[in-house]
């Protein structure tokens, strides 16, 4: 199972929207990695998120693959992930940070 961490601004991503995102992220994980994702949501409390020292509207979605992936494939998947996030949330590309990590060496 892949792992996915979503850091979102509390006042930007209501619970109903989160359910849709969750489904989309599971579809993405199954398509990208061939398996479901263990998704963790963390809400940044209102007034507690800053980007460039100003109130933040950024979301961070971070997958950890279960095996190393080629960079060309990673870039393609990162683009897909950003598209998914924009479609489901209505946010702009500038408001998404997408990460796809290889498993870390222990």
């Amino acid at each position: 199972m892949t792992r996915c961490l979503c850091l979102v601004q509390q006042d930007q991503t209501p619970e109903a929207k989160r359910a849709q995102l969750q489904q989309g992220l599971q579809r993405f994980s199954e398509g990208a990695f061939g398996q479901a994702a263990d998704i963790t949501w963390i809400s940044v409390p209102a007034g507690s998120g800053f980007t460039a020292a100003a109130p933040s509207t950024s979301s961070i979605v971070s997958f950890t693959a279960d095996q190393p992936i080629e960079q060309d494939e990673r870039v393609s998947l990162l683009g897909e992930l950003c598209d998914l996030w924009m479609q489901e949330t209505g946010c702009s590309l500038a408001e998404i940070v997408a990460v796809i990590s290889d498993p870390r060496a222990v």
Partner: protein
Amino acid sequence: MPLYVCNSTKGVIDDGAKPKIADDITRIHCEVTGAPPEFVHAFFFEDASHFPLDGNTAFLFGSIRGGRTDAQKARIVEEMRQSIHAHSGIPLDEIVATTVDTPASWVMEGGDVLPEPGEEAAWLAAHEAKLAAESQAGS
């Protein structure tokens, strides 16, 4: 990226201190690394189980692009601890900070894979040119 997450016990960093610390985090990171402020995210939490305090009062965790020197990372950690101390009053020995390296090639921000350290200016120029072209095509 970088993403700095500051977790602390409830009530010790008030709402007035957060923007000041975020401002310092942004300034310090940019001064030390030369990165543009647009990349710097600072998020604050209270008693968040995902970022364990392990008996400390505040824990600052920075996920930064790989390629920084040990001296740069040490300066980031020390100056950010001092900022939290100065704006919150938390004793310095109750504030822990650390960073972890994340390869730039793993991260997409604004639709582009992030540049390696030192290549930010060229990346920003290309990124802004791309946005301008897309804006023009869409108008």
